């Protein structure tokens, strides 16, 4: 195992870096799109159920099938990294749009009424009151989406861009377990590190959740 790493660390490193951006760009894109979509699903109640249903259907489509349906729709080659990026963004969006909507619904109550009575306009109330209050739930969804994305990227190795998944296919073809084990361990470490990073980020952004009994 160690000798494999010593001989191949430039490759492993580049796979790791590719893995990271293939997983995290979709998290950012999906999260950025889920905020307006989730907000819309709350403001327009008739949109809530469609958002939830479409999200659930989208989420049940297996990753390889989704990656390979995207080329027909956007007209790129099926080995383009865009397929993996868009596919994972869609999963993130499907998961987070509902989370954002549910989180925003759950914070409606005395605090939002107080904000309105204080003269907050809708947008300022959203960014100053509702989103900060909803942050813990949204962050929980973000953590799930991030960890899921990191473990899904490796499937992309079958369509040309798989990050650490390249170690899986390479190891399988040569009959070596070492690269596969290294790939699995690094992928899980990456997921763990990103998860911890998000927890720390959330603590910084919502310091009040640590005060008092209910964390």
């Amino acid at each position, binding site marked *: 195992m160690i000798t494999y790493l010593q001989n191949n660390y430039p490759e492993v490193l580049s796979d790791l870096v590719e893995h990271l951006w293939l997983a995290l760009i979709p998290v950012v894109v999906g999260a950025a799109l889920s905020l307006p979509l989730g907000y819309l699903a709350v403001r327009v109640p008739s949109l809530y159920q469609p958002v939830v249903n479409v999200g659930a259907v989208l989420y049940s489509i297996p990753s390889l099938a989704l990656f390979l349906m995207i080329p027909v729709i956007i007209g790129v080659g099926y080995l383009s990294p865009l397929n993996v990026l868009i596919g994972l963004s869609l999963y993130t969006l499907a998961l987070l749009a509902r989370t954002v909507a549910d989180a925003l619904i759950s914070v409606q109550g005395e605090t939002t009424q107080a904000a309105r009575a204080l003269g907050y306009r809708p947008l300022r109330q959203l960014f100053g009151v509702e989103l900060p209050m909803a942050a*813990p739930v949204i962050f929980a969804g973000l953590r799930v989406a991030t960890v899921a994305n990191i473990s899904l990227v490796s499937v992309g190795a079958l369509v040309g861009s798989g990050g650490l998944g390249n170690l899986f296919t390479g190891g399988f073809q040569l009959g070596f377990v070492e690269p596969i084990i290294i790939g699995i361990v690094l992928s899980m470490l990456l997921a763990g590190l990103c998860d911890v990073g998000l927890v720390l980020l959330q603590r910084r952004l919502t310091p009040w959740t640590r005060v008092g009994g209910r964390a």
Partner: protein
Amino acid sequence: MSLVSPTPMLNYFGYLFDGANWHLSGDSSIPERLAQHIGYTLAALAIAALIALPVGLLIGHTNRGAFIAIGLGNLGRSLPTFGLVLLLVTYLGVYIWPVLLALIVLAIPPILAQTYAAIRSVDPAAVDAAVGMGMRPLQVLFQAEVPMALPLIIGGLRNALLQVTATATIAAYASFGGLGRLLIDGLNRNQYDQVLAGAILVAALAIALDYISAFIERVVVSPGVRERGSRRSRRSRSAVRTQSPTEESPVSASR
């Protein structure tokens, strides 16, 4: 099959709508692949459930070893499924059983973790009432806790089902049968109409299996439990989610 055009991209749906690929007799026909896929998926799910359900019920009921259930659930979520399949196949040989083993191993964490969480989520007052009525521990478990936890337990099984369906697809890379063959063979031959046929069929199968399991859930969950769930309006349901957003969500990410 004879519809291969010089540039395969021109004919997206050739393979899917070619009657020759739908014959029941051919051993690489679409119905055959579909049957294989469903067979392997359900077999792996059944074996995983036989292992994970009792353990999850036990941990939930006694609340001992909760860290096992929680840790396993988190570990399972971050495990790259594709890597596990190829690891077992490379280590044990290119046969069907290492792939089935991988599918079973993958299905255990979501079932076990969610069964545990489901039993823990049952209203303690109801459990106390069951004990007060003189029920024995096993009666408490199977007549009070399980019926009330059933929607969440089935949620775990549905997550596992989706995960196994998806992983059985990519296992075609390691010579596994099923609908994934269309995708992998199509990729190897640069035949996009076959790839697309596989993608559409796999997606349709996953969606159909999810709908069927939702229907089964509706049938087996006691009307009392179901009504209580629906009477709690959207607002109070999301209040529950505030406490455990990942466990509650039916679109929980487990693939």
